[in-house]
């Protein structure tokens, strides 16, 4: 149950009684009805088809218990009792919320606070509600709200911690290329002053490389921030899947050669055309293939494309690379968590690629899954709709 729903729960949700008598009924008949229905907290008195008043069990029997109570009230019409009551029973409209009902009922004088109250219905007999039922309902709602608030707080704390971790990791990842850029620049200043320029080109290349790495990382961070702020747009077009696959294959080939990996593409010819965000899909697949190439050496990488369940396209990138253990696998889609943080330095990459690929997969209406065995290989499976719904989720 969520908190917005709790606010809209009204007195109509409470168990009720609708025993009524006409205003000509005698006190003795009311007493008999109460005796026959021990759980009945009150009886409505009607004048023709209009609500006239309510007899509360406790007040009624208290009155009968007074000197000459029985003699006064049982032979006379019940209206005598109703008109002599010290306070009018609380009568609420059907749309009154539980919270407001509590407030109104607790405003009664202390000796009447446990009395039942009435809901004045449209086109239905008035309802009599036991005050205890109201209290029980409120307790139930408060407990649910409390449990929900607790869960929300836990989720907020966990999100806040994740953000702090992200910032700490980001600071670390940005500082590493900056160490090279600042350090080499200062060395070069000394080189130029002393005329020792033999190592300068190598150092300048390192500065450029570190700068490009830094830029890739900043772009990745901005993309993630955009997605989180729901400001990342989809550009949906109709395009040829066959063309996209040959394009990706061309990008992936040189990456595969770098580590002497065999690479093959197995494509289901049934899928010819897609309606999706081609650029984001290309980025996702290039990233998955780039990872497979990077973490596999003298092995094999396969890209399998197939149609599934009618309207879905499944891209499977499997490799025979270093794989991941359970801990690495559990953090594989988190930012800046390349298995362990030193992997980025050994294998390159920003540490944001899989995080982005997963988010893009979800934006396209699909999802990204992973299976891996340490030292045996990894398979990433990206399943996306063949046609993205135009009026789907707005990012």
């Amino acid at each position, binding site marked *: 149950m969520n908190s917005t729903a709790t606010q809209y729960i009204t007195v109509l949700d409470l168990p009720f009684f609708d025993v009524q008598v006409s205003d000509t009924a005698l006190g003795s008949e009311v007493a008999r009805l109460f005796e026959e229905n021990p759980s009945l907290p009150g009886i409505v008195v009607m004048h023709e088809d209009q609500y006239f008043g309510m007899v509360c069990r406790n007040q009624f029997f208290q009155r009968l218990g007074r000197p000459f109570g029985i003699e006064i009230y049982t032979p006379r019409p019940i209206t005598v009792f109703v008109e002599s009551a010290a306070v009018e029973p609380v009568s609420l409209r059907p749309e009154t919320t539980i919270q407001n009902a509590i407030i109104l009922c607790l405003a009664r004088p202390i000796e009447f606070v446990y009395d039942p109250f009435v809901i004045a219905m449209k086109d239905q007999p008035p309802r009599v509600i036991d005050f205890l039922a109201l209290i029980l309902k409120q307790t139930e709602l408060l407990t649910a709200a409390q449990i929900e608030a607790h869960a929300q707080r836990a989720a907020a704390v966990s999100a806040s911690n994740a953000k702090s971790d992200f910032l700490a990791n980001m600071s670390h990842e940005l*500082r*590493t290329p*900056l*160490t090279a850029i600042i*350090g080499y620049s200062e*060395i070069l200043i000394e080189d130029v002053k002393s005329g020792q320029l033999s190592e300068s080109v190598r150092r300048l290349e*390192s500065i450029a490389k*570190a700068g490009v790495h830094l830029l890739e990382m900043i772009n990745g961070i901005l993309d993630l921030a955009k997605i989180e702020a729901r400001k990342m747009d989809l550009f949906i077009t109709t395009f040829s899947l066959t063309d996209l696959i040959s394009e990706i294959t061309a990008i992936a080939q040189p990456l595969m050669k770098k580590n002497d990996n065999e690479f093959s593409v197995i494509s289901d010819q049934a899928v010819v055309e897609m309606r999706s965000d081609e650029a984001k899909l290309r980025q996702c697949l290039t990233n998955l293939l780039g990872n497979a190439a990077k973490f596999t050496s003298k092995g094999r990488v396969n890209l399998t494309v197939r149609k599934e369940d009618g309207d879905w396209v499944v891209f499977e990138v499997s490799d025979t690379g270093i794989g991941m253990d359970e801990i690495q696998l559990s953090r594989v889609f988190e930012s800046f968590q390349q298995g*362990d943080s030193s992997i980025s330095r050994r294998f390159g990459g920003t540490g944001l690629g899989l995080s982005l690929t997963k988010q893009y997969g979800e934006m396209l209406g699909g999802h990204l899954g992973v299976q891996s065995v340490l030292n045996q290989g990894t398979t990433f499976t990206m399943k996306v709709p063949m046609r993205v719904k135009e009026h789907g989720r707005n990012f």
Partner: protein
Amino acid sequence: MKRILFVEDDDMSRDVISTRLLRSGFDVVLAEDGLKAIEILKTRAFDLIILDMSMPGLTGWETATKLKASPATATIPILALSAHAMSMDRKRALDAGCGDFDSKPVHLPRLLAKIEGLLGCAEGQAAGK
């Protein structure tokens, strides 16, 4: 000439920081992870160890703990040098046995001051014995 063992897994950081240490007049020996550093320490004496913290295999924190636990290396001062730059990272390094902490990117005068501080401290202890 004071001899420093510089332990760092990132190629560029190792190259850039060691060049600066050499130019500042130190004899610098390089190790690319904690295990290699421990191997080198078995055969050679050093005045100071500069230790990166997040490294594959044996991390900087683990390396520092091991070195401080071994009588042969316990007296060599360790300067932690890390791209983790929060105050708790400093505490974590000091808790692992490092004598001081500096963050990357390196600010050379600050790094040199910390190196001198640790070397001076070690000399003071040696003279006091």
